[in-house]
């Protein structure tokens, strides 16, 4: 069990930049998936959930962003807004503030463009050296810290759809190990034609046409006493994260049910207290198995289901972080009420399931 609380958050999503448009969109149940500009984004998809009018120059600044790629700019923007929402106070103790950011592959667009330049150019070294740092997957986490002066441990976590939950789990462990006083934690994903093709080829036929999305959600995790000292009201307490593996697809339901039961039992939270459930809802048939697994574990209760996937598209590595943000959006400005619990779940097609259990702080 973790003593950490979530006391601030921000989101960059297809609803726009900031937690306010995200909360409004999620609570209205309004889909932000729209028609893609096919001249900018050729490729297999006609629709997608892109952050509207987002550019690094517009949201990060004109200086120093010439070679900043999209996922990095999205992450830097999300972390910047998170810090701004708490008066930049965590950045004033930079060595004790960690940053844990989930990502898919970093920017596959950057990786592919750079590699193509090297292979297709007149000389293999006729590449833009300033773009090389974009080709490593920890670019977004590194830049987010450098840009905002965060000097604590800096970690990149990747785990498919479960990335956001794994990042949360890692962040809690990092804090428990005494490596930092607080953690900025979340995940980011960008839309690109390159990612679109990878997803297209990686998917089964039944889910192939589901639109992609992009965005980021980041959270401030800190001790309740630190939140109180800074005058921040905790929005939720992170009780635990649990993960399991499965072999055949049909075993995913039982694996997730066991995972959720485990989370409830280790924390002593009653199934009936779970008022909000934010499932991943991805992977064709896996989406139905996920809801069935959660229902198996919760029994005859009647939680409110917050389904982000139809609203935001498949945001891949950012999915579970955006689900967590959706829980906070649904809980409102005062956060989860005492005695109220929320569940964020996911099933990764590669054979892992996970959940995070939150309660009122």
């Amino acid at each position, binding site marked *: 069990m973790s003593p950490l609380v979530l006391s601030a958050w921000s989101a960059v999503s297809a609803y726009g930049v900031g937690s306010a448009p995200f909360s409004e969109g999620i609570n209205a149940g309004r889909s932000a998936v729209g028609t893609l500009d096919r001249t900018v984004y050729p490729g297999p998809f006609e629709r997608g959930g892109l952050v509207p009018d987002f550019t690094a120059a517009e949201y990060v600044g*004109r*200086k120093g962003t010439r070679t900043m790629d999209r996922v990095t700019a999205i992450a830097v923007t999300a972390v910047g807004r998170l810090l701004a929402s708490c008066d930049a106070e965590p950045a004033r103790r930079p060595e004790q503030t960690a940053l844990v950011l989930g990502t898919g592959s970093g920017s596959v667009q950057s990786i592919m463009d750079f590699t193509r330049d090297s292979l297709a*150019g007149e*000389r293999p*070294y*006729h*590449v*833009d*050296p*300033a773009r090389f740092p974009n080709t490593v997957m920890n670019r977004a986490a590194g830049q987010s810290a450098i840009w905002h002066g965060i000097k604590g441990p800096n970690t990149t976590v990747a785990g498919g759809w479960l990335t956001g939950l794994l990042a949360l789990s890692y962040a809690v462990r990092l804090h428990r190990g005494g490596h930092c006083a607080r953690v900025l934690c979340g995940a980011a994903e960008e839309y690109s034609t390159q990612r679109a093709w990878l997803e297209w080829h990686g998917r089964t036929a039944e889910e192939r046409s589901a639109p992609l999305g992009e965005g980021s959600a980041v959270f401030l995790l800190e001790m309740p006493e630190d939140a109180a000292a800074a005058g921040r009201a905790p929005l939720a307490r992170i009780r635990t994260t649990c993960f399991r593996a499965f072999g055949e697809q049909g075993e995913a339901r039982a694996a997730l049910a066991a995972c959720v039961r485990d989370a409830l039992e280790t924390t002593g939270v009653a199934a009936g207290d779970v008022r909000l459930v934010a499932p991943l809802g991805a992977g064709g048939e896996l989406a139905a198995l996920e809801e069935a697994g959660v229902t198996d574990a919760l029994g005859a209760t009647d939680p409110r289901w917050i389904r982000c996937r139809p609203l935001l598209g498949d945001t891949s590595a950012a999915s579970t972080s955006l689900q967590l943000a959706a829980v906070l959006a649904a809980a409102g400005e005062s956060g989860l009420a005492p005695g109220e619990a929320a569940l964020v779940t996911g099933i990764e097609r590669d054979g892992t399931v996970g959940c995070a259990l939150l309660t009122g702080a």
Partner: protein
Amino acid sequence: MTTANRVDADGRATIKEIICDILEIDADEMTDTSRFKEDHEADSMGAIEILSQLERAFGIDIDQAELARMVNLEGVVTVVGEAVAAKAASH
């Protein structure tokens, strides 16, 4: 023939555009002799970028030792002129 003749007005404009883009400054901020590092806050990464982009734009090879001379627009034009001449001579 002097080496400077190898870079015409268009070439000079291209060089200036590349450098201003990398240093994220407006063209009118840069003079022929304003220094990248001291006047325009360039770092070593910026210098390597300038060298690399010029190699791609002009199809030339520039030895990294030339960076010592590539401190302002005038110096870069001279180095590019020499590299263009060296390329022509090798053909």
